[in-house]
């Protein structure tokens, strides 16, 4: 049997980078670049991706890539776009790829500014739910009840109390042409979304769930499996919003209970250690059920 799909002649994100074993983000980035092709300029903020791809002299990026500082990838991207526009280099597209810390928290203002200006930037958030580069501190993207080093579970805590910031909806409220959520568990779907985003001009946002074996504590071979469980539990809803309307959702063929997803990750282990924890799991189930209802995620029986 021959290879079923096209593969690139030359990889744009090569081996030798220093991502952890089984890194969901690294996998995602390989496919982002397969989908965008090489006529791009990438901008990344400080974070896992930046750190594992840029020790001096050892870069996996076969496209132009710039890291400036932590807060400003969206603004740097705006600057690149302005330069390209002035220079008449319209065919080269600008793609920002940043983690959740940079996107949800410290770079949130700059992101909003870029969206509001209508700059032609595809911003991709590779979301592993914490400041993983520095050891796993909470971000606004950390799901509620997950334990992190700054929101640890303890005698008086069930992990993060605050709900995950709904950044895709906040971004969509800026009135931009394309917003989507994706997962590295579904690579073809991810690439389709990137390709579709590239057909639009103006600001676009894609948030990719990138499971993190190191940070979420699961064996490194389970990265896609964990991603699938997250999606099929309803906790990680996958949808596309084009010009303000939901145009597609990824249906869940077989819904799995959230506990099946949570129990495989040490960051939720505290929920299985007490009766109180088990009650919290019910709240997480309600959250997942809420997503399923809101986005119509269950396949029609």
């Amino acid at each position, binding site marked *: 049997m021959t290879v079923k799909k096209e593969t690139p002649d030359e990889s744009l994100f090569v081996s030798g980078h220093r991502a952890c074993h089984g890194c969901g983000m690294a996998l995602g980035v390989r496919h982002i670049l397969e989908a965008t092709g090489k006529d791009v300029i990438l901008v990344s903020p400080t974070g896992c991706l930046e750190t594992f791809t840029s020790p*001096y002299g050892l870069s996996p990026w076969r496209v132009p890539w710039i*890291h400036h*500082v932590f807060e400003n990838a969206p603004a740097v991207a705006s600057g690149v776009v302005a330069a390209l526009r002035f220079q008449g280099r319209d065919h080269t597209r600008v793609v920002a790829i940043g983690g959740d810390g940079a996107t949800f928290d410290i770079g949130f203002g700059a992101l909003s500014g870029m969206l509001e200006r209508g700059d032609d930037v595809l911003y991709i958030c590779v979301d592993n739910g914490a400041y993983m580069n520095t050891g796993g501190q909470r971000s606004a993207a950390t799901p509620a009840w997950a334990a992190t080093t700054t929101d640890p579970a303890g005698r008086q805590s069930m992990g993060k109390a605050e709900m995950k910031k709904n950044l895709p909806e906040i971004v969509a409220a800026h009135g931009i042409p394309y917003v989507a959520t994706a997962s590295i568990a579904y690579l073809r779907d991810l690439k389709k979304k990137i390709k579709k985003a590239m057909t639009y001009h103006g600001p676009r946002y894609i948030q990719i769930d990138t499971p993190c074996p190191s940070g979420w504590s699961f064996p490194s071979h389970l990265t896609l499996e964990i991603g699938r469980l997250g999606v099929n539990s309803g906790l990680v809803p996958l949808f596309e919003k084009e010009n303000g309307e939901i145009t597609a959702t990824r249906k869940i063929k077989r819904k799995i209970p959230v506990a099946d997803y949570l129990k495989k990750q040490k960051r939720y282990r505290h929920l299985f250690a007490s009766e109180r924890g088990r009650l919290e799991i019910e709240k997480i189930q309600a959250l997942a059920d809420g997503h399923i209802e809101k986005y119509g995620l269950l396949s029609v029986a």
Partner: protein
Amino acid sequence: MGNIRVVEGSEAVALAVKACRPHVISAYPISPQTHIVEGLARMVADGDISAEYVKVESEFSAASVLAGAAAAGSRSYTASSSQGLLLMTEVLYASAGMRLPFVITAVNRSISAPINIQVDHQDSMSLRDAGLIQFYVESVQEAYDMHLAAFKIAEDPDIMLPVMVCMDGWVLTHSYERVQFVDQQAVDDFLPPFAPEHHLDPATPKTWGSYAESDVMMEFKYAIHKAMTEGKPRIQAILRDVSALTGRDNSGLIEAYRIDGAEIILVALGSVTGTVKDAVDELRDAGKKVGLLKIRCYRPFPHEEIWQAVKDANVIAVMDASFSMGSEGSIGLDLKAKLFGRPQAPMVVDFVAGLGGREINARTIHRLVARAEEIHSSGLVLPESEWVDLDPTIVS
């Protein structure tokens, strides 16, 4: 020579920037620089300038836009003041480290708290460690002239650093002065398009913003210092070229005014130097051997040029409009560091004057000179800066 018009200081700067044909301008308002970006906005709205004008949501982003544009191969510009300049600090350090050239007008204004919108130099002085080239101007005309030089200096292949042109807020930006403009053709002949060695381009994919381990970090940082210090001749050559263009000699890293035989030399920068020159004339008329050393290029610090100018004086009276809390005035720190150990170096007395826009007039300077003489006669080296016109009775 070009035409002469009476214009507001901000307008002169906007016209200088326009003449330099930037590709990208970012804009965020803060008093007292706002007239500059507004002037540029009007030019964009009328199609008189073809730059991409990016209206950002903070000064952090204003500087970041310039970094992205410069990396992508475009000449870029913004203006800011005070709190806005401080907000850019991280971006400016990173841009210097990545050798990204652009020009920022620092319209000098004091730093909170308390909040005060009048002029002093705390804002730009707080950034002097970052690896930017810094100039301070005396007049609107000099502001115009220095902006013509700034882009060429920033983009020089051996320099490749951000350049900050500092001009006093309100005093220069909002006063009207007779300015002689340079013809566009002459500016175009002087300033070729930005042509960096590297820029973001899919045809030659490069990685910008690597991290450096301890084994190479010092060398990367030293390279910035080296570019600045070894860049002094290049900076002077470009300033001389601008002088040829304008017919005005602003070519020195310093300007010495009536230094010959001076026993007391005042060191100052910015618009106050105009007042100091008047005071020096009055004092000279009265028989006092006083002179002024105006520092035009503050970073790289022109210590050799300063030494040659001041070495025969008895006392140097530094006029600092910024202060390093817990230590001494900014220029005082730089100057004393560089003169220390020089044979028979003059005594240096550091005066802090003008913070928060407090008036400095000729009489202030006369008092300052008298005080410097007194201190010099006493032979005592002062452990602290002298805060001029301070009312200690209200200090809590």
